[in-house]
């Protein structure tokens, strides 16, 4: 039995789910899908997930997608200590807000910088999207502040979600992360202290960066 994770290394959300799984010390069967080859659109996968997105988690009979819902589910279900997703309503609310900020604001605007180039044939990074991405990083600086983590003074799923987003952003090279010293220090801490970071996130983030830079360099 065990956990099956439908995955692609270049995908930021897929890596976030995998990194959380490693942080919890759970076993997982990683099933890589070739999205560029349309493998996610095949019947068997669409039958599991009609939205045909990754990551998708299969836990016995239970299927769940949306990386951040996967992460909170795994802590709720298997977390030995709850600090990764605190049970106090107010602490949890702050973690939730950071997760929605990741999806709706930081990752969303970062996506608007890079996806038109990777998929849409755009030649340069959209200025408005870049400005909004920088603004989101400034807010992230504030969220971390002097507490050391994005949602308080200890590691939560929000750090993992946002950390993977920022690592992908860093790999793309669309901006200089050193302009955000608090974010840079926090990301470095995650890289050096999270178990499984080197395995679950590093290669995929790098692969994304290479793919993006190649797409940008294409002149025709």
């Amino acid at each position: 039995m065990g956990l099956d994770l439908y995955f692609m290394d270049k995908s930021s959300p897929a890596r976030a789910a995998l990194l959380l799984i490693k942080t919890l010390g759970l076993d997982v069967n990683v099933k890589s899908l070739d999205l560029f080859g349309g493998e996610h659109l095949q019947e068997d996968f669409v039958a599991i997930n009609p939205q045909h997105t990754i990551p998708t988690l299969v836990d016995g009979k239970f299927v769940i997608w949306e990386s951040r819902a996967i992460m909170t589910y795994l802590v709720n279900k298997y977390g030995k200590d709850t600090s990764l997703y605190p049970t106090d309503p107010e602490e949890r609310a702050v973690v939730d807000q950071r997760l929605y900020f990741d999806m709706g604001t930081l990752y969303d605007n970062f996506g608007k910088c890079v996806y038109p180039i990777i998929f849409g044939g755009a030649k340069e990074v959209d200025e408005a999207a870049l400005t909004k991405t920088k603004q989101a990083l400034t807010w992230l600086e504030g969220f971390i502040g002097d507490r050391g983590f994005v949602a308080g003074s200890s590691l939560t799923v929000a750090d993992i979600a946002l950390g993977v987003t920022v690592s992908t952003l860093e790999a793309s090279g669309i901006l200089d992360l050193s302009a955000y010293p608090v974010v840079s220090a926090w990301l470095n801490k995650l890289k050096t202290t999270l178990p499984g970071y080197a395995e679950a996130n590093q290669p995929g983030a790098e692969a994304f960066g290479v793919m993006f830079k190649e797409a940008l360099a294409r002149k025709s």
Partner: protein
Amino acid sequence: MGLTVFAFEASPPCRGVFITLKALGLEYELKQIDTKAGDTRTPEYLEKNPQHTVPLLEDGDLYLAESRAISTYLVNKYAPDSDLYPKDPEARALVDSRLFFDVGLNTALLHILKPLKYDGDIARSDAAIPALLDLINIFEAMLAKSEYAAGDHVTLADLAIVANVSTAEAMGLDLSGVPKVRAWLDKIKQLPCYEANVQGVTQLGVMYKEGSTALRAKAQ
């Protein structure tokens, strides 16, 4: 006690919170926000919410942005045994997954509305419609597997998604191909809490229809 919500009615995420508050029978004070007039950019507002978004919840010392984090917080804090946000990890994960799906719905909706509201760009607005309809088709496929958005009874997922789907309907978008979505919409409209959505969605529907009609006429 004293909950305060900073919001404006036409906004779908604001309506999501209004519907949830009504479903939970919670009293609150509404502070009307006019974003065009700069209400979210005052130093006072930015202190409470650096993201300068609506809705914003104030509960004692807690200032919480992100509509879906607000809704889950309200249940966790004030109605922890409510079926609207079940405690079972799997049931909860499904609700969470749909709440993140709803972020995508709202983003797609904004891609239609913002070019209209801020740039008078009807071409860009119209070009964004298929992407929203695509997500509504996916919601149709989800409803093939469950009666409500996240299982066999009403949850926060329904209350959030209805704010966006009712908006698509009010805008006059073509929902002829999604009978399950229309049936689901009719069911949710019967809920007493849906009353909190009516004024705002009507407003937004009218604004879109008038605005888009005028711009298309000008373009001819």
